């Protein structure tokens, strides 16, 4: 039972350690944020499992967890957020306690799942759809869940066999005397199928249950994505409101992903005319032109320009308009991530991020006139439009609202590629291990062939007794291919009578003579070798072709 208990603990700690290590790699710049969580998680898990091993009742365990928490968490330095430590410590302790409990597999699995979800959600966009790395991790989590269930079941069986209020018999390990060859293959296939089903169900259904929470991210300047728009006509840039969204999770550590709303035409640009027509107002104008910059900006009547999802640029060009194509009305800025600051300070007013032009290196600096003080008196200058409020902002959950450091705008940056980097290394490691296993698997037939050859005709001189033993091993290998096994206390003669294979009884007789020290002469050795080879062939003939094929992969041979 101890071994099975250790197995459960090892798997549970592996789950925790991998979840923590992965997220630490992803958020390596925010160790001060993660440290309280990890401290709480490790301390809680250790305490919970100690209480479980001491057979403490659950209500006593809850009180002890709280009491111990009150003792040590209050001693932590002020730089560590006590609230965060508590949030990690209490569930870690209880899940650690329940990882050895009865009928508590799912509850116990929740806290490790929370740690894994931090990494998975970090690569999940604002629509709550995880990226490839996240999906792989989600599948890995499903597989680990099955592994966790399996080791827990092994422990339950060990308890069932050894723990009872009434006396129990001492049971020996089952002895298989004959089994179907290749029985392991369907067993492995079953495990793979169940894992795959769990993997698929989790990857498909679980993200659909996730809910996002959004925050006002301020306004950012975005490129409208029209490289052939020419200069210096507007719109080259637009202003768009942004919302930041992330998937809700218990631990308030997740970074949000920015979602840029509908663009609003930039202020201060000029409308360009092509032959007295506002270029690009309603439809794209295409055609060759001698010089995209040869247009003449012309004043137009001020007024709102339609924006219906296409390019809202007013393209100029008297004769040769530039290529203008409708653009997607909603642009997503380059992948931004919101990083909440550490600590539990009150939420500060959200400061709009300064406009950052993105991905327009090929566009020369526009000649944009400054906005006039009185737009009504300056025809041709577009009245600055007021950015519409971000639509459909879901009010964040009070407990999950990320906090913004006062006086400083939230840091917008692309998510660290650590997730994919870690996953890539993990994949390389897995592939290496798989390759080693594959090589070992491929080498098995070679090992078997060499061993069988040595059993039949030794590569070097051996004693007669050893050669008799080798021949018997050859027979045992053939019988094992056919599914026959010898019992620990079964003599060769009894085994031969049970199995009924040609030549086996003669082999058993000679072997027993050798074991009992009765002299073996040259004829006996020759007969033993011949009988062994005959028995080997006869035994393998009983096996199915598939079993014979699989037997070449078996190691150890007997």
């Amino acid at each position, binding site marked *: *039972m101890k071994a099975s208990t250790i197995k459960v603990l090892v798997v549970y700690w592996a789950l925790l350690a991998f979840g923590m290590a992965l997220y630490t790699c992803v958020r390596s710049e925010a160790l001060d944020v993660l440290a309280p969580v990890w401290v709480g998680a490790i301390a809680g898990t250790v305490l919970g499992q100690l209480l*479980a091993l001491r*057979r*403490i*009742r659950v209500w006593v365990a809850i009180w002890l967890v709280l009491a111990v928490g009150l003792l040590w968490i209050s001693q932590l330095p002020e730089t560590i957020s006590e609230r965060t430590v508590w949030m990690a410590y209490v569930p870690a302790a209880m899940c650690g306690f329940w990882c*050895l409990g*009865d*009928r*508590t597999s*799912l*509850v116990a*699995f*929740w806290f490790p*799942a*929370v740690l894994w*979800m931090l990494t998975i959600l970090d690569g999940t966009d604002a629509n*709550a759809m995880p990226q490839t790395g996240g999906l792989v991790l*989600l599948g890995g*989590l499903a597989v680990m*869940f099955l592994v966790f*269930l*399996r080791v*827990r*079941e092994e*422990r*339950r069986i060990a*308890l*069932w066999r050894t*723990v009872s209020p*009434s006396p*129990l*018999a001492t*049971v*020996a390990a*089952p*002895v*298989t*005397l*004959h*089994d*179907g060859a290749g*029985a392991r293959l*369907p*067993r492995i*296939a079953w495990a793979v199928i*169940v894992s795959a089903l*769990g993997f698929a*169900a*989790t990857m498909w*259904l*679980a993200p*659909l*249950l996730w*809910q996002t*929470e959004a925050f006002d991210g301020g306004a950012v300047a975005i490129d409208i994505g029209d490289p052939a728009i020419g200069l210096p006509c507007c719109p080259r840039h637009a202003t768009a409101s942004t919302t930041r969204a992330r998937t*809700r*999770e*218990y631990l308030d550590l997740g970074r949000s992903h920015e979602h840029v709303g509908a663009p609003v035409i930039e202020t201060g640009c000029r409308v360009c005319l092509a032959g007295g027509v506002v270029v690009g107002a309603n439809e794209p104008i295409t055609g060759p032109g001698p010089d995209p910059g040869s247009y003449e900006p012309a004043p137009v009547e001020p007024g709102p320009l339609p924006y219906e999802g296409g390019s809202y640029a007013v393209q100029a060009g008297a004769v040769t308009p530039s290529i203008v194509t409708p653009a997607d009305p909603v642009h997503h800025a380059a992948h931004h991530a919101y990083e909440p600051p550490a600590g539990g300070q009150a939420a500060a007013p959200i400061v709009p991020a300064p406009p950052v032009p993105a991905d327009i290196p090929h566009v020369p600096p526009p000649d944009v006139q400054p906005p006039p003080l009185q737009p009504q008196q300056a025809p041709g200058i577009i009245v600055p439009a007021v950015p519409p409020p971000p639509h459909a902002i879901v009010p964040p*959950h009070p407990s999950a609202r990320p906090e913004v450091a006062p006086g400083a705008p939230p840091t917008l940056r692309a998510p660290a590629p650590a997730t994919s980097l870690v996953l890539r290394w993990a994949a390389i490691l897995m592939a290496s291990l798989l390759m080693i296993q594959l090589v070992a698997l491929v080498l098995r037939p070679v090992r078997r062939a060499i061993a069988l050859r040595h059993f039949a005709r030794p590569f070097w001189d051996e004693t007669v007794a050893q050669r008799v033993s080798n021949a018997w091993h050859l027979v045992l290998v053939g019988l094992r291919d056919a599914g026959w096994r010898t*019992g620990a206390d079964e003599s060769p003669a009894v085994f031969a009578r049970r199995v009924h294979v040609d030549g086996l009884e003669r082999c058993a007789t000679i072997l027993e003579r050798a074991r009992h020290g009765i002299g073996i002469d040259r004829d006996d050795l020759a007969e033993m070798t011949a009988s062994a080879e005959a028995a080997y062939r006869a035994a393998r003939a009983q096996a199915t072709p598939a079993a014979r094929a699989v037997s070449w992969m078996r190691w150890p041979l007997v």
Partner: protein
Amino acid sequence: MIAARTWRLLALAAPSLVVPLVASAHGASRVSYATGIALSVLWLVVAAALLVRFVIALHAQFRSRDAASPWDRIDVLTAGGAAMMWMGLLALVGAAETGWASLGVVGVLGVGTVSIVALWTILVAAGDGPWHRAQVLRAVLPAVATEGEPLREEITLRDLVIPHGMRLFVLGRAQRHGTSSRYVVDGGASGEVVLRADLGPALRGEHPVPPLALWFGDVLGLTRTAVVHRGAAELTVMPRQLRVEDARALLGAGGDDANAKPAHLMPTEGTFRVRAYVPGDDARRIHWVRSLQQDQLIVRLPDELPLADPTVRLVLDNELAGTEALSCRAPDDLLDVLVRVWLGIAKELAAQGTRVTLVAAIDGRVCERPMLPRSAHAALRFGARVDWQTALPLERILADRRDKHVIVSGRPRRISTGEVGWVAVPEVAWTQVETALSIEKAATYSFPIGSPENRRDRRARERDRAIARWQDRAVFSQVMCWIDWSRFSGDYVARPHEGHAAVEMIP
């Protein structure tokens, strides 16, 4: 109060139905659509499989009353599986309420895994298919054992196909108060597997060993199949021989052939046997008339008291009602001791030349067997068959017999049949008290955490069982200890003495 099985059956069906409702109630249309479709399909498949299994089991039950109940057939979730299903449902509801992604993942994992494994179990393992060709051979060795000898059990499973992803669980108890044996066999075996266990000391009696309980459980511990009973056997355990000291005291003033007791009479008194004079004989014993008649000196031999009673019927009093209903071990222990003392006295007397007849009521008949000094084995077999009975009262066993009767009994009592001798075997001296009630500690569990034995219902059941044992023991003691010893003054009592039994006269 809903039964546990109802909860398990509900757990199989309810979460798959409730989750779409919960999801749609929270306005998550894509959740309700996708999840609802998936879970509805899963639920339909599971329900259809359950229905088919139920109908097949119902049909089988109509054909044979020994067949498993249809409800047992479809009750495939273990306690752990049902708990996971309900926890998964709670997690999904919690995910809808709080929006925590981890709860959604855990809920999907829980409900999905249990549903998939349950479907597999219903389709592959829940029927009779795996058992059709299976042979379960069971032997309790040695087949004829002696009381106290270590027993071992050997179970051979042949041609039993354990479905993939499943394990075989085997549970058996060879003797009523013996140990339980619990085996687990991993899946995949379809040939021959041997299971062995040491059952501990053998308990006297002819035991019809009840069949083993076998079932499959999946490797994740979420589902199981209905129990199948196979492998009944028989076991004979002969009583252990007990040396009884001073058994000859039961014969009264007589002795045996080697130790004749001379009468204290004058040399000229009494009836005489005669023989030829040999030097050294007392001259006063010369029978002169006979000497003249035979022309040689003839002497009279002194009279002796008769030899030990030529025949002793040693009767075992095994009449006691209601022992089957008693859950304590004391009745069986006392009967074992009675048999041991009974056979020990018989052996002791027979060794001294007394013709002893063993008498006991077995299977509603009075059975007698002579105790011969060199055929103890037959007597031991006879003793192995003895059990408590009510069919024949003690008077009927003794009726119409003029032989000397010695009754070995745990509760000597007045009977209408003439003079008999009693050997009382006091229950208090020969039986052990029941194991103490386990004290539940307030802060710790009695068993390692994770053991189902810690569950409140099981603890309550075990506590009730222990209390019942103690109460039964008290009742049994009241029945057996109600002896008016003063009425049996001059009879005998058998007490344990240094591993043997000593027969002493009741003062």
